[in-house]
């Protein structure tokens, strides 16, 4: 930052130097009628001054642009840390796509703020000061004029800026919506085709785009107006100086000089400096949207911080051992500061299974998340093998847990990576697990077998097959406790059958399952409970 400011000051000095150069040259030409130095010397000296200014400017912008990359990297780091600390409590306030956006395009919007706005703010202070000092060597009235006209600029900038901000805020929801309309309609074209609504929608899109155009132009009109006003005031102030000087030269006026007279050189010098005085302020005005972008992102990060705080709850986490034979839940209630459901009490041994029935909204997901140590426990106890343990943020506990949700959770990697999740299982063990889940022939037919890369574009595995991968994973890792949240809700009869039979195997081999589901496919659960909402819970 220091170097950047220094380079900025060097640029200002060069500006002043060039003004002086021009002034003295014109003086030689007009007053003396001859040149004191050779043309070549004059040209080279001018070129040098301007070249130093150009190099300083480029160097400065390079520093700031690089800086903005570093700062943005740090911001991304901060966002990741906060998100990971918060874990699944991020949802539903944040969505995966929203977070991905924040991490990439939103943070990138800050490029201008860090690369240009911040330095421009500093230059807007120092450059005018230097210029005032330079000018006051020659004259005291001109610096006074410059100084007095300065406040006008920010005042008008603020007035118009506020109006522009208001207009854009009023429009923001509208603009946001219309801006994304094309994308949305393209994603849903097959729906529109089926509904035979394509033509109607095309016209509607045009009308809406026009609306968008009109709204945006309204905002732009005000935004451009503020820039124009800045220019206008700067121009008027420069004109004032020019008129004053003109009158002075024509002997109509003789106020303001330190001595008896202003030489022409001095006059030209002042006139060249005057517009440069206003330039940094105008540049800063043009960058005002950079500031509001920065605010928007800062707000989101604040929200992230708040969510992180709330998710921590009131109990301490620990790292005690996981369990082997049995778990007992005593009056368990999940929640951060408010109870989500009525207390749950149940005992399960190896090979036993619990079915949780709950109408939607009663917090069965929260209960499962709490058991998995992903959410805090409000009250009650969890006993593993008769020892009291605290599941929240407890890595050893979590390692003994498997979790299967409605939507298959996958990682960006190969099939093998998705099954092993970082643990060193042999290929033999993997194939065994796939066999038990009846996925062996499916995987054998994949283009690269276990090395098949799963991304959002993979079409070789159906949704149902991907869901069954979760069971294969469980059979591979053999977690002590397997939690399932509506695992077969989206599966057809046959796939569901395959899934449940693999689940059966898991239980036979000594696992414990807790499943929340409407469908059971005639699975024999050893235990059953109905989850009830707390009175007055939302």
């Amino acid at each position, binding site marked *: 930052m220091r170097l950047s400011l220094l380079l900025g000051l060097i640029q200002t000095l060069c500006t002043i130097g060039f003004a002086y150069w021009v002034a003295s*040259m*014109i003086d030689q030409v007009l007053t003396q*009628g001859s*040149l004191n130095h050779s*043309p*070549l010397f004059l*040209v080279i000296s*001018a070129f040098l001054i301007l070249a130093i200014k150009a190099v300083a400017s480029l160097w400065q912008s*390079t520093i700031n642009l690089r800086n903005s*990359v570093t700062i*943005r*990297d740090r911001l*991304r780091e901060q966002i990741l840390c906060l998100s990971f600390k918060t874990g*699944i409590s991020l949802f539903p306030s944040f969505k*995966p*796509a929203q977070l*991905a956006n924040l*991490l990439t*395009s939103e943070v990138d919007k800050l490029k201008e703020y860090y690369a240009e706005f911040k330095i421009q703010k500093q230059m807007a202070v120092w450059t005018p000061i230097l210029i005032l000092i330079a000018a006051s060597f020659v004259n005291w009235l001109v610096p006074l004029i410059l100084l007095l006209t300065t406040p006008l600029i920010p005042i008008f900038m603020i007035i118009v800026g506020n109006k522009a901000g208001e207009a854009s805020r009023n429009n923001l929801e509208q603009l*946001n*919506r219309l801006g*994304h*309309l094309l*994308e*949305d309609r393209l*994603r*849903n*074209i097959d*729906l*529109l085709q089926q509904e035979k*609504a394509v033509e109607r929608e095309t016209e509607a*899109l*045009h009308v809406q785009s026009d609306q*968008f155009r009109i709204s*945006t132009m309204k905002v732009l009109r005000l935004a451009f107006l503020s820039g124009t006003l800045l220019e206008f005031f700067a121009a008027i102030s420069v004109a004032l100086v*020019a008129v004053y000087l*003109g009158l002075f*030269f*024509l*002997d109509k006026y003789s106020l303001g000089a330190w001595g008896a007279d202003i030489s*022409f050189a001095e*006059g030209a010098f002042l*006139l060249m400096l005057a517009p440069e005085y206003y330039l940094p302020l105008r540049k800063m005005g043009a960058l005002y949207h950079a500031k509001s972008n920065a605010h928007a992102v800062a707000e989101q990060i604040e929200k992230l911080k708040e969510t992180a705080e709330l998710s921590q709850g009131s109990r301490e986490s620990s790292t005690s051992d996981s369990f082997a034979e049995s778990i007992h839940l005593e009056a368990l209630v999940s929640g951060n500061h408010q109870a989500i459901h009525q207390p749950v009490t149940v005992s399960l041994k190896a090979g036993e299974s619990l079915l949780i029935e709950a109408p939607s909204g009663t917090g069965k997901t929260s209960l499962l998340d709490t058991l998995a140590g*992903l959410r805090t426990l409000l009250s009650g106890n969890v006993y593993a093998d008769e020892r009291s343990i605290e599941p929240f943020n407890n890595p050893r506990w*979590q*390692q003994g*847990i498997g*979790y299967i*949700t409605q939507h298959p959770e*996958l*990682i*960006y990697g190969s099939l093998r990576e998705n099954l092993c*999740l970082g643990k060193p299982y042999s290929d033999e063990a993997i194939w065994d697990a796939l066999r038990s889940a009846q996925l062996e022939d499916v995987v054998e037919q994949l283009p690269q077998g276990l090395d098949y890369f799963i991304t*959002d*574009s993979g079409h070789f595995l159906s949704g*149902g097959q991907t869901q069954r991968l979760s069971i294969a994973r469980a059979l591979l890792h053999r977690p002590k406790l397997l939690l399932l949240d509506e695992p077969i*809700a989206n599966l*057809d009869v046959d*796939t569901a059958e395959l899934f449940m039979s693999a689940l059966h195997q898991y239980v036979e081999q000594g696992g414990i399952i807790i499943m929340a589901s409407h*469908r059971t496919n005639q699975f024999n659960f050893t235990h059953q409970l109905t989850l009830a909402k707390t009175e007055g819970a939302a």
Partner: protein
Amino acid sequence: MKKHYWSLLLAERGVFLLGLTLSIITAFAGIALLAVSGWFISAAALAGVTAAAAHAFNFFTPGAIVRGLSIARTAGRYGERLANHEATFRLISTLRRDIFSRLANSQNISARMNRHDSASRMLQDIQNIEGIHLHSLVPAITALFSAVGFVLVTALFLPDLAMASLPLILLALVGIPWLYAKAVLEPESELHLSRNALWSRASGIFSSLRLLTLSQQLENEGHTLRQQSRQSDLFELKALKRQQMINLLSQLIHLSLVGLTLYLALKAYLAGELAGALIFMLLLLSLGTIEVLAAANGALSHLLLGHRALSRLGKSSENEIIFVDKRTTIPEKPSLGISVKELSYAYEGSEQNVFEERTVEFNQLGLNWIAGQSGRGKTTLLRLIAGEIELQKGNLIIEGTSSSKIAYLPQRVQIIRSTLRHNLDFNGQRTDEEIMSALNQVELGKWLESLPKQLDTWIGPGEWEPSGGELKRIGLARLLLKQADILLLDEPFAGMDAELQTNIITALRDLWQHKLVLLVSHDLEQRNSNDTLHSL
């Protein structure tokens, strides 16, 4: 697509020319302002040398010119920004509609749009097309005019300068933009691609947070993400480095032009060929001109980006769908029925038939439950009957009604980002009462009341998002509103709790007594003795 863009531009030529003219006027006014001010000061100074000359000097005309130019420049800049943005927006608005219309008729577009990278690229392409006008044509043409203006004016006073400056101007106008395009386009597009990949990975991580946390993989994934992000930053730094080097070169060329101007002017002055006051004017003329030239550095690069975007969009919208409806309809028949005769179907790219030589008759009114083999066969059958996919082998005969009175509810209900009303009635054919009645029949009456603006509430991504169960029922309501004779439902109750299912089915069973309803469901618990069961 390219021809189309240019024809659209031509159509908007009024605003386009207005913007361009204002832009050129502004540039000229700015340059002239500098030059004339310079002359004015010198002339005033010269005049001030003797008292007599001072009184004789016409102070006001040049002063007025200066002030006039100043106002012209300021107003011109405001006007040109507005006019140019207006021209661009109008163009893009029409272009978007046309792109949409073309894409709507091309194959596989939904599948492509639902991949984030394709969608993001398409939208980026549209933005790049905006850049053709705003960041390429306008600055380039303005720069060209300014350069020509410079040469002409200097030719008036100093012909040698006009000649000597030509190579430098050519370098500035052509050489630098070309260099810029060559050096900076590559890393910038690599940057964009890598940011997209970063988005995909981040989104994947956040979607699988539970899995990653429990398997203690979160830190690893985070680490990989950070590395990927830093890799992406390297592309940005590379583009930056190249950009700054070219800027440096550009500055040197511009300053050489200024230096050349000064040198020749001074020499001419010393030789008595040029008046003193004009040195200052030419100097400031050159300074003003290089500012305008600098603005055109990126012009070629934006033009290329825009053109590439146009070709990509052009290619995307090829492959027009040609769909032939081979279903046979006999509307005159007195009773409703569907006859499937030896139907075989295989999906594109698949060697195996989904089903072969299937023959079945549906002629019992009321609910017909379809159970049996793997989901794809049943869904495929419904889609064939609905006319969503083209028949291959065999016959499909629909009796008792026309094909426009067949309604299909797919497994996955889609909504668009629009009002609830729009999502239920795409063609605006139903009254509000009818819509609310349909919502009541699917037990969404209370939900409707709870919405901030009821039917006018915006739903969809970024708006009020309905839950899975609500979405299913919205689809069902949409189906009801079609008032069709033949209804095809694919797993309409999946994920709904038993009580809700019972309520809805009881109400609908009454409503559908005289309609032909085909219902694919894995769960046959709601079936009663009056319904028909087909096992496929």
